[in-house]
């Protein structure tokens, strides 16, 4: 059964503080040294449990049209106008720059000096100086719909994501689904290359020295320090006829190893990238999640059917893994780690059970607790003191007498106060979530609900902030407490919320700026 992605929170990777929760997007962890997780395959190939237990765990989502923020600016791509709008924070001054045809994605570099758009119809990338708005456009290969940016902002990889909702402009001539385009945004050069069928995700090492592109049957490693970067393709399966497809790829922070989790496999494929050495290490039955500990020293795999956690020492990933037994009566398939690495939260998005468990890494103690509804996603605040549990509308084991029956819900859990919880009934589906870097507040938006919801992590209280129209994306300006929400409006609308003053400022119609002549 093909299942689309619905929700993801990546609390431990705070480099990007806004996330989307839309159905049908490809799953992709944007942080360096993180993981790429494809759940779009056939879950029936994994596991031997009941119907629910054959479902893949649902993890993160990535969306293209979210604005991109720096500490001083918010960049909004306007695909219909072929422009990018820069909104200064906090003055909210708006300036628009022309880029290539149909910019469907915009990203900012970690040093906040540049913004980059991928212009789908023009088959190009525009590199924009954040201060001067000087634009350089570089052509790329056709037939792409996604863009990934290296941590240092120098490298862009454009690729075709088969799970993307983004519709591509019509093209003529031959098409390939094996290619990517590598763009050097400093020297403004373009290097096309073939990496393998169906590129599923792109990872950069934290130092931006290497890039890894995982496709159905290959991992392509690109040395970005080479004078002429070229892919080193490594086959990840010995089965040449019907290889298991990669479900998740995890790159270690130092870029030495890539872990590949495949459908139906009971082993993980570990690749030592420099040597192109491919080995397999044991993992329990039906591994459904693979993550790094926040210190980057260990990888954690959740074997749902085996009811085990497998921990791999990344200094020697081929060494025997440590195994932690999970409660035999529970089925947990996903894990999120607290930022300090002292605790993990275990849950399942597939089994429709209203429970989660805390895992204390120091003692390996596992404690199971109940929830008002099954889990759609769990995230942790940047301080790790508060957990957010998003619940689906589907009821699972929720009794029909529950106030939450047939409703979306959200639970805030204070992890510092005996896991005290405040469940909230929601009028509609959450579609976006962000939290401030200081860990004081979280923000989320819901489908067709003109509210910015503010969560106070210290008190577990919430506040409704009325918006002028329905929100589309939500985020927090980096290194500040200022939250933003883009909203539905023909000519563009952004609101900025200052939680300290309670002021909400809205700018509307900024796409008109593309038509100003002077």
């Amino acid at each position, binding site marked *: 059964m093909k299942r689309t992605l619905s929700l993801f929170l990546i609390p431990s990777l705070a480099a990007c503080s806004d996330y989307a929760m839309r159905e049908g997007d490809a799953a992709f962890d944007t942080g360096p040294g993180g993981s790429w997780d494809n759940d779009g395959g056939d879950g029936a190939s994994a596991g031997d449990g009941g119907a629910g237990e054959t479902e893949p765990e649902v993890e993160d989502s990535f969306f293209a049209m979210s604005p991109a923020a720096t500490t001083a600016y918010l960049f909004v791509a306007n695909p219909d106008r072929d422009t990018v709008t820069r909104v200064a924070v906090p003055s909210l001054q708006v300036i628009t720059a022309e880029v290539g045809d149909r910019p469907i994605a915009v990203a900012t570099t970690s040093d906040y000096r540049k913004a980059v758009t991928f212009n789908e119809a023009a088959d190009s990338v525009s590199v924009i100086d954040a201060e001067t708005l000087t634009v350089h456009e570089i052509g790329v290969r056709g037939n792409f719909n996604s863009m990934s940016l290296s941590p240092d902002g120098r490298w862009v990889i454009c690729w075709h994501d088969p799970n993307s909702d983004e519709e591509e402009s019509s093209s003529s001539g031959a098409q390939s689904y094996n290619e990517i385009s590598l763009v050097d945004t400093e020297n403004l050069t373009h290097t096309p290359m073939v990496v393998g069928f169906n590129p599923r995700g792109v990872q950069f090492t934290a130092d931006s020295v290497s890039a890894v592109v995982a496709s159905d049957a290959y991992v392509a490693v690109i040395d970005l320090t080479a004078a002429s970067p070229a892919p080193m393709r490594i086959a990840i399966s010995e089965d040449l006829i019907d290889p298991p497809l990669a479900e998740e790829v995890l790159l270690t922070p130092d870029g030495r190893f890539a872990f590949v989790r495949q459908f139906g496999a009971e082993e993980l494929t570990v690749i030592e990238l420099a040597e192109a050495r491919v080995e397999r290490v044991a993992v329990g039955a039906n591994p459904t999640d693979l993550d790094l500990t926040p210190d980057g020293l260990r990888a954690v795999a959740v074997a749902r059917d085996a009811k085990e956690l497998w921990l791999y020492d990344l200094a020697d990933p081929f060494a025997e893994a440590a195994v932690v037994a999970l409660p035999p009566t529970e089925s947990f398939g996903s894990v999120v780690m607290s930022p300090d690495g002292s605790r993990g939260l275990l849950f399942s998005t597939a089994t429709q059970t209203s429970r989660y468990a805390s895992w204390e890494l120091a003692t390996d103690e596992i404690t199971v607790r109940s929830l008002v509804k099954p889990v759609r996603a769990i995230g942790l605040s940047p301080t790790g003191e508060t957990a957010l549990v998003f619940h689906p509308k589907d009821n699972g084991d929720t009794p029909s007498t529950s106030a939450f029956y047939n409703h979306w819900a959200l639970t805030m859990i204070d992890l510092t106060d005996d896991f005290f919880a405040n469940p909230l009934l929601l009028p509609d589906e959450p579609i976006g979530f962000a939290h401030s870097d200081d860990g004081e507040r979280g923000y989320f938006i819901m489908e067709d609900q003109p509210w910015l919801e503010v969560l106070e992590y210290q008190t577990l209280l919430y506040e409704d902030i009325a918006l002028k129209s329905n929100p589309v994306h939500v985020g927090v300006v980096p290194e500040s407490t200022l939250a933003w929400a883009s909203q539905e409006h023909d000519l563009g609308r952004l609101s900025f919320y200052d939680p300290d003053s309670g002021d909400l400022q809205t700018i509307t119609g900024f796409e*008109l700026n593309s038509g100003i002549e002077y």
Partner: protein
Amino acid sequence: MITLPLALVLMGCNPWDNLPDNGQYTLDAPLWDPGSAVAIEDGIYFTQPSNGGLVRVRTDGGFDGVDLDGAEVVRTTPTADGQRLVVWDRYRTCKDPEAEKIEDCDDDELGWSYEVSIVKDAAVELVTEIPAHLNRMVFTPDGSIAVAYLDYDSAEDIPVDGVVDLTQVAFIDLDTGAVASISAGFSANNIIFSLDGSRAVVLSRSQVIVVDLETFEKTVEFPLTLDNDQQVDPTSAALTPDGRYALITVAGSKDLYKLDLDVKAIDIISLDAVPARLMVSPSLDRTLLVYNTEARVDLLDHDLFNLDPQQLDHGVSEMVEGESFALLYYGGSAYNNRMDIYHLDYESLEVTEYVMGNPVESLQLTASRAFAVGILRPSAYSGSGLDGYQASRYGLGVVDLLNQEEVSLVLESPPVGLALVEDDGGAYALVLLEGRSDLLKVDLRNPSQPISLELEIPPTGIGALPDGRFFITHASGLGLVSFLDPSDDSISVASGFAVLGLQTDDTLPRLAGQE
């Protein structure tokens, strides 16, 4: 049609020697138009529809004709400083250079030429040419520059000579006569100026342009929509006191456009309803927005541009500003029986409600801002008894803003004119009523006992003169104006001025090639 027997000649000499038909002359139009009165510093100017002339009546009772070099007046307007009169005029031309009279010219060669004359002291100071269809003017605050535009709603007809550019506006330097025409967009009929007079903002359908008033060049063009099929028609606009932002309301929309003229950016502020009126208050440094359909006034600050609503009992559509307050009232449909005047205090932001006897049609403030005087119109809901009596008649509303008291007087007949006067001795309203030959002087401190000032001929209108006196026009075919000195209620008269320039012939005023 007016027939003048020669026996009515008022002049010492006989200027009618050229009249045909044994001394009987039939006029197709009145000798003067009392409604055309324009008072500037040197007198009151009236147009003369019968001969296209222009006459100035001085306050000492004398009068002068204005020589327009054979042209006839189309319309007039005072300059912003009240020093000069702008005259749109036209004259006959013939393409045949040999033709000296109109009768010598073939019909297909006969035409009109249009010009604008600047008049002061009954003489033409400056003549300039602008496109004939530009029928309205606005002036910079210092009165040195005029912008002529087409107001289609008030255009009797649009003179077309070959082609007409309906996107055109003309900037005129009133000191030199230099003209610069700019394409400002379709139906460009709303022009506002920055307080420092450095730039003009011209609003047209779906776009706004900014013009540098030093160079008369377009510096920025703002779109109000990116959809070519959509029409966005501005209805009102104002600049913030610092001149940086233009705030624009558009027809049928809850959107308030905020144009940053410095950074060149557009923001749209979403209102809860379609605003009826927008007014920028320099003293409050906020913009006031009122609504027909919402019982509140919104105060829009000029920093974060947030709306601060102040509740009212019902929607209003009009605003009048004093130095530290605004008066709000509903001037729309009589079927909305809204009789309140709201006083919004700028310091406390408190709203005081005054309930008048009938709906307010118009409202004026005295010079000291101590009194507000309004014309009250009959209510659509007349009721019965004494309420019905009052509701079915026009009235005069007086609000004492210092003592927070209001009085509603019932008028015998519809008012035809209202003027306010205030000096050390008191504050008065001068009211002309239809069908009455006297002028009512209402002491605003004691409005219930008006004084009647007798006039010999029924009045048709009243207006203020720059020197503090008032002029009253009368229904007299040959021209009659009374001057009222409110300090002693003395009245002087000027008459007979309408016959000036009555003699006409069909000589072409300017021969071909000499225009």
